Structure formats: C-alpha cells, structure tokens
C-alpha cells in the first residue's frame, strides 16, 4: 500500500519525502483547499520547487483543491487547477462536481482523485464519479467499517485510499456545517473547521472554559489539560447527562487493521495533518513507513511510540470498527 503524507509547508514536504512517503499532498495558500489556515500552504513557486524535490526522489505530489467553488468565484478554483497541472502535479484531489468537470474538459490527461469531501460512500456513487469524470482514485469517507470496505472494493472501478492516522472527522466529511453554524466559516466554503479566529479561552473560578463562536465547547477542571475546542469533540449537556456527545478528543489510528485494509483491496493509506509541524510529519511518516514494511509481529513496538504523538494521547479506529457506531 502507498503512504500518502501531508505537507502544510515546503519544509514539511521535504521531511515527508525524506521519511519515506510515496506521495505528498498539499494545497495552495487560499480557500481552494480544506486546510486554509494562516501561515500554511504553498505559493506557486513553493509548489514548483517542492514538486521538483519530490520528482528527484521518485515521490509524487497530489494537490488538494477540495473545497466547493464559491458561486461567482469559480475562476479562483479553475486557475488553481490550471496552475497545479502546469506545475506538474501528479494528481488533483477534488470534491466539487463542476470542478471535476472542468478538469476533465480542460486537462483530460490529468489524473483526478476524488476527495473525501465529495462523500461518496457506496459503489454506485463511486462508479458514477469514475464513469462521469474518469476519477482514478477515491478517498473514502470515514463512515465505513473495514468489512464494508472489503465488500465495496471489488465493486468499484478505481483505486481506494483511506485515512489511517491523524485527525478524525466524526461527521461525514463534506456534509458538515456545524462550524459555520457557530462561526460563519465552514470546511466546504472557507476550508476551515472550528477556526482559531473564533476560539476563546477564559477562566471561570478553578475551571478553564474553551469557547467557539461564543459557545462553550468544554470546561476543564484544575489540572486537566485544556484541549482545542473542535466543535464535534466538545463536552455538552444532554438530558441529565454531561459528556462528549459526539466523540472524545481522540485521533484516528487504524494501524492495527493494516493487513485487513490491504486484504480489503485498499491502494493507499492517508495520513491527516497538513496543519502539523515538520517534526511531527517526519516522525509519523517514518514510523508508518517502517510499520508498513514490517511483519505484523514487529509492528506493535513501532506503533506504541507513534501513539504518544496523537492528540490527547488517545486514539480510536473510529468507523473502521463496527462497535464505534
């Protein structure tokens, strides 16, 4: 299986290449991609230099253009696609149907990957995208079990890529407007979720309160580490209970299912984390590279170390295991 690694900066790109990535994915410095954070992402020149660095080492570059084109501003996305093709991207990762259509018409030779944001979660949906736009690969939403994926793979006419490690969307990707409900800014439209610009921490007696858009997302007691207020990983009050209503502050780790995913027919494993620093990227990529190449017996020792890098130091296999539902 290929290892697809994140890069939010040229430095992280080089670390990912050097640490053993098969491909690196990245985006331009604007709302055309779903990690539109301040100080992150690539200028055209940076992407050109990075692609050259990758090519010299036999590593592919995927460019994420995975937000939905804002009505009336489609040119921004079309130009980003044109530039990515011109600069030599090996694949474009796309969610918007009209952007897929544009790429097929304008750059018929360009390899197209369907983003997780497109939310194609079954064989008919996937084959529709393959047939209509010639998609070569599809990134599966985090809503399927390993068994579901194994049942799906023989029915689809393209490669499948799955998220294996890093941040975990609890909600089906590309279909969530929780963030814009609280802040006005959403993954689909602005490429951000629970944006830092709308985060506030305040002390209330002994407790630290984290807020998003004025809504309390969590309260932390003295000595409890205060986490980032990602909306779907907050603590809420429901009926007579208080707790993590949707998901605990955990991150995704499906490395225990590596062989099952390979047997299921998965082509590529994706690491989330374009917002992460280069040291994190280097560490995660090299560990996962070793784990992929190791025997199942050698793997647990390699992965134990990796878990310490995870958000809140707790991980889940998420929807890949049936009991998570």
């Amino acid at each position, binding site marked *: 299986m290929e290892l697809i690694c994140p890069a939010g900066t040229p430095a992280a790109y080089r670390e990912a290449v050097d640490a053993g990535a098969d491909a690196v994915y990245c985006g331009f410095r604007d709302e055309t991609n779903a990690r539109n954070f301040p100080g992150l992402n690539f200028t055209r020149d940076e992407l050109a230099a990075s692609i050259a660095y990758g090519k010299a080492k036999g590593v592919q570059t995927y460019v994420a253009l995975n937000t*939905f*084109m*804002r*009505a*009336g501003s*489609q040119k921004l996305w079309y130009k980003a696609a044109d530039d990515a093709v011109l600069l030599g991207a090996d694949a474009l990762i796309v969610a*918007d*149907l*009209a952007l897929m*259509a*544009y790429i097929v018409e304008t750059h018929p030779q360009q390899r197209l990957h369907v983003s997780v944001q*497109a*939310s*194609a*979660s*079954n*064989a*008919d*949906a996937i*084959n*529709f995208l393959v*047939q*209509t736009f010639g998609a070569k690969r599809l990134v599966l939403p*985090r*809503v*399927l079990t390993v068994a*579901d994926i194994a*049942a799906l793979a023989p029915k689809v006419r393209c490669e499948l890529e799955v998220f294996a490690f890093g941040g975990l969307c*609890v*909600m*089906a990707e*590309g*279909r*969530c*407007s*929780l963030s*814009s*409900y609280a*802040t*006005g800014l959403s993954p*689909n439209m602005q490429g951000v979720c629970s944006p830092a610009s709308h985060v506030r921490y305040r002390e209330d007696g002994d407790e630290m309160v984290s807020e998003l*858009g004025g*809504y*309390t997302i*969590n*309260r932390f007691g003295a000595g409890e580490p205060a986490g980032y207020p990602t909306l*779907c990983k*907050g603590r*809420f*009050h*429901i*009926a007579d*209970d*208080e707790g993590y*209503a*949707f*998901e605990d502050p955990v991150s995704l780790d499906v490395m225990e299912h590596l062989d099952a995913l390979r047997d299921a027919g998965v082509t590529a494993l994706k690491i989330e984390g374009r917002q992460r620093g280069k040291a994190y990227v280097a560490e995660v990529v090299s560990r996962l590279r070793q784990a992929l190449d190791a025997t199942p017996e050698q793997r647990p020792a390699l992965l134990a170390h990796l878990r310490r890098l995870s958000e809140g130091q707790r991980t889940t296999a998420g929807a890949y295991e*049936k009991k*998570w*539902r």
Partner: protein
Amino acid sequence: MDGRTLRITLGPVPYLWDGEAWRDFYFRIADCAWIDAVTLGEVVCSKRLHFTQPFIDAVAGRLANAGKEVSLASMAMVTLEREAMLTRRLVEASPWPVEANDLSALGLLSGRPHLVGPFVNVYNGATARMLASRGATRICLGPELPLASVVEIVGAAPQTDFEVFAFGRLPLAISARCAHARTKGNSKDNCQFVCQDDPDGLAVDTLDGQSFLTLNGVQTMSHTCQVLLAELPALQQAGVSHIRLSPQHCDMADVAEVFAAVRDGQIDPGEGEARLHAIYPGVPFSNGFHHGTVGASWISAAAQEVPA
C-alpha cells in the same frame, strides 16, 4: 418581481415518528391549501424505514389526489449494501419523481427527470447547470448557502426550478455514529429506536446552559429554527421558485398558512414571525446562513433594511 409566485413545498419529516402519527400528519397536510408540493421519505436512517413504509402508498396517493406534487426522497447517506439496494429500487420503481440526496441516487437518476435534495452539494452555478443537463428539474439548495450564492446559482441555470430551505431546524451534519443512541447508552446497531422518544429531536446544550444543537438519530441539527420570511421578496427576485418547509413537531399546515400570507402580502414579516412563535413555541429563530454570517444568528427584518 418576475411574476412567478413562490410555491410552498414540504420536505420529508426528519424525525422518527410513530407510523400512524406520521400518516395522520400527512393526511392533514393533504387538506392544507397552502402547500403545493410534498417530498416524502426517510432521509436520515435506514433503520427507521419500517415505521413509515406500510403507510407511504396511502399517504402519497392521498396527497396526489389533493393536488399536491408528490416526490420521494432518497437517503442522505448510503453505506450498507441494503441501503444501496433500497436506493436502486427507489430509482427504478418509484411511481413518483425521486429527489436525489446522495451521489449514488444522483448517478442512477442521470438522464431522466428528477429532483435534487439539499444533501447533494451544489455550491455554484456550474454544478447546478451540470445537474440540470443530466435531468435535474428542481434543486433544493443546501441551507448553508448565502443569498449571494443563491442569486448566482439560480441565474446560471434559468430553466431549472430552485428551492430554498425556509423553515425548520437546520440539518447540519450526519455521521456513521448515532449520538442519539449513545446518549441512552446504546450503539447504532442496537439502538432500540430511542430517537422515537424525541419527536422534535433531543436538545444539546453547552455546559454553560446555552441552547446549541439538536440530536436526531445519526443527524445533528440546529437548536434554532431557520425562518426566512422577510427574505421572501429577495428570494423571489433571485428567481427562486419554491420554498421548503421542513416538518417540526408542530402544526405545519398553520406554518404554511403564515408563509403564504407573508408571501401574498396579507401580513408583514414581523406579524408572520410572531405567529410562527405561537405555532412553534420555545424555539429561537435563525437566518444567519442566508445573510452570509453565523448560521445560528438572527438578523431582524428591521436590521435588514439598514444599508450595509
């Protein structure tokens, strides 16, 4: 004004209601003169289907006999083989036009007339035009879209009807996991249909007691009810042809009457708003998405008149 009157549609009941209550709700809707079209079906969770399935033919027939345009919605998220089969069967065998709510239904419906529901991402005119060329006759836009986008999209596909979500709690997210079942200590696979206990959803408050969200099975909705009343002239001017009322656990025939009265200029939006508060009490209203801001926010009609 282009002379076309905004038509009023009723979207699918998002919640799990008892089958007979569901049937009787629609029998009342059949007698409501203000509703022009009704989209039926279970959009949120395939496990609920058997509650309404026995009544759907009777309900659709009754609505059609009353002169309503009837359509059947496909599910918003299709993951299991059983759900894929149900979607294929709906597309192949439905006696009524089908509203596509995921990409599988959209693909299966290509080349023949169909509707597109709010769970298919249509964020720009190019996408709307493409869907229209593949057979979409009416597209219900997702509630996250601001008016500026609605104007652009409708203008890009003038032959297509467009529907805008004008009343109801906002569908904000859907998950493979059932948060509703989890609150009662169950998993999705052994959910005991606990969402039936909450016919208007289950409130999610913040730890500081702010009303925030609503659980509806695997779907997360807003706590607020979106209401676009003062916005109706702008929607009509944009070329929108239909407004969608999403059923809440209140008298939806009365809700439709209020929307018709405001649309027809019989009462002003402020009075309409007051009447809606009486019909659907205890739930704050929102219209922020339409105005390109925080979805939960409410921009009053008076504030909308102030030039930017």
